[in-house]
């Protein structure tokens, strides 16, 4: 089953707002082996000029996850999850995520390509705050392996 090329350019509905909790930032920070006090200690974060704990650079993956679930559940997408491999990932920030942020993600499929019998799907999740201002874009390239391997 090939990935539907008509997915390219498709924009999905915004996800339900995700409220970033302090303890979630601490939990995620421990999980990625962070030791920076600004990820754990509110006083250290405030001393550096932040409103609250700062999330690690890869934290948006937690918010992005709901958008990738939308993509995989799309009936005409033709994406067989058991054949999906994570190829590339990028986060481009306007500002860091801090505890207390309420974030909403909107997924756009920016490209669908074929390469050597595989399909490459690039999905951009634009993540904005409660005021609608851009915070970070999380870009995933998924490799959907072909049938012949």
């Amino acid at each position, binding site marked *: 089953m090939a990935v539907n090329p008509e997915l390219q350019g498709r924009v999905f509905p915004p996800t339900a707002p995700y409220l970033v909790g302090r303890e*979630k930032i601490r*939990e*995620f920070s*421990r*999980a*990625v*082996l*962070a*030791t*920076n006090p*600004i*990820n754990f200690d509110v006083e250290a974060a405030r001393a*550096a000029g*932040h409103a609250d704990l*700062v*999330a*690690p*650079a*890869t934290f948006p*993956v*937690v918010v992005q*996850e709901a958008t990738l679930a939308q993509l995989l559940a799309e009936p005409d997408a033709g994406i067989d999850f*058991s054949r999906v*491999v*994570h*190829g*590339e*990932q*990028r*986060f*481009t*920030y306007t*500002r*860091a995520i801090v505890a207390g942020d309420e974030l909403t993600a909107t997924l756009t499929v920016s490209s669908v390509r074929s390469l050597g019998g595989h399909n490459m799907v690039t999905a951009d999740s634009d993540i904005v705050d409660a005021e609608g201002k851009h915070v970070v874009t999380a*870009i995933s390239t998924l490799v959907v392996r072909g049938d012949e391997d």
Partner: protein
Amino acid sequence: MVDYSSLTKGDVVAEESFHLTRDNLVRYAGASGDFNPIHYRDDVALSVGLPGVLAHGMLTMGLAVQPVSNWVGDPARIVDYQVRFTRPVLVDGQTGADVTVTAAVGALEDENKIARIDLTAKFNDETVLGKAQVRVNLA
């Protein structure tokens, strides 16, 4: 605070080794919400043709940037971070896995005082991330 003007392309700014065990993978699964069983069950990993349980690519990406976060002092100065996942990190149930990360200045963007830090992440003497680049705002 790192002084932008003190940096030269090629400078190694941080090096760190991370020891991963299966416990780390379970912790990352819970924290991230990625419960793909290839990251904690040998039987499932083997059944899909993998040599064993693998670390989440996003765990490798997440830990590889930590030496840069500590070097720069404030993680909010990381404005862009990208990687390609080129090789898996196999995490043995008994002995775990060791990932070493070297961070070096890859490019300097003088107009806005952004340093591009290039990461080399290795497991078993082979790189596991490609084009691993962190852009850090030092203005």
